[in-house]
């Protein structure tokens, strides 16, 4: 499943990077807000559910080969983080749901 298909299935909203979403394949999902923990535990291709919308989250997503970031509970994406994400081609989506609710839905899709 691609990020684009996941977005359409779950009714998520793009915050940036949508032009790359059709090419990004999803393999699994990881939830977490501690950046080093996520870098250490998330697998390449994971969808990453978090409330951390700062510039360092973008660095983590790029280095750990995350397929996309989904900011849960309408958490804020900082302006400098959005600029960095656009520069690096990171797909970021948003939802009002919390990480548990969204992860439960994702587990039925992938």
């Amino acid at each position, binding site marked *: 499943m691609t990020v684009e298909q996941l977005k359409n299935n779950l009714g998520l909203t793009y915050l940036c990077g949508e032009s790359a979403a059709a090419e990004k394949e999803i393999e699994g999902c990881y939830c977490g807000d501690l950046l080093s923990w996520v870098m250490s535990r998330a697998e390449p291709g994971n969808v990453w559910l978090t409330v951390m919308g*700062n510039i*360092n989250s973008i660095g983590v997503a790029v280095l750990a080969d995350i397929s996309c970031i989904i900011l849960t509970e309408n958490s804020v994406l900082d302006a400098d983080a959005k600029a960095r994400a656009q520069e690096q081609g990171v797909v970021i989506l948003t939802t009002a749901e919390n990480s548990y609710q969204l992860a439960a839905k994702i587990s039925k899709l992938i």
Partner: protein
Amino acid sequence: MEPLKLHFDVSGSDFTCAGEASGNIKKALKEIGFSAALTRNVAIAVYEGEINMVIHGGGGQIDVEITPECISIVLADQGPGIPDIALAMQEGYSTAPENVRQLGFGAGMGLPNIKKYTDEMIIESEVGKGTTIRLKVFPQ
């Protein structure tokens, strides 16, 4: 083949720049043709080093030498040093201040992650003088 040498200066207390060195190293390794897994591991280890330099070291320097047989990385800062290296290597032990934790760092995973993603790790640290971490990753 002559080793490819890369040097980066990491500025202290600037989280927006952390990730530049690791991003550039990742790109270089990818272009040379190292595997995606090795490239990712090296990038994560260097990123953790960069973050440590920003949080604790007041900035520092990163030097990388790349050959087909070995990727050698030296992370050096002139910060306060690590009084107890064995304690600092424990997962979950952190001395990061609250403002850093609010950014999602300070989980006490930095040094353990560096060890996890490299084949050799040597820490030299002197209180009041700084810390140097020497890393090696062997592609084969």
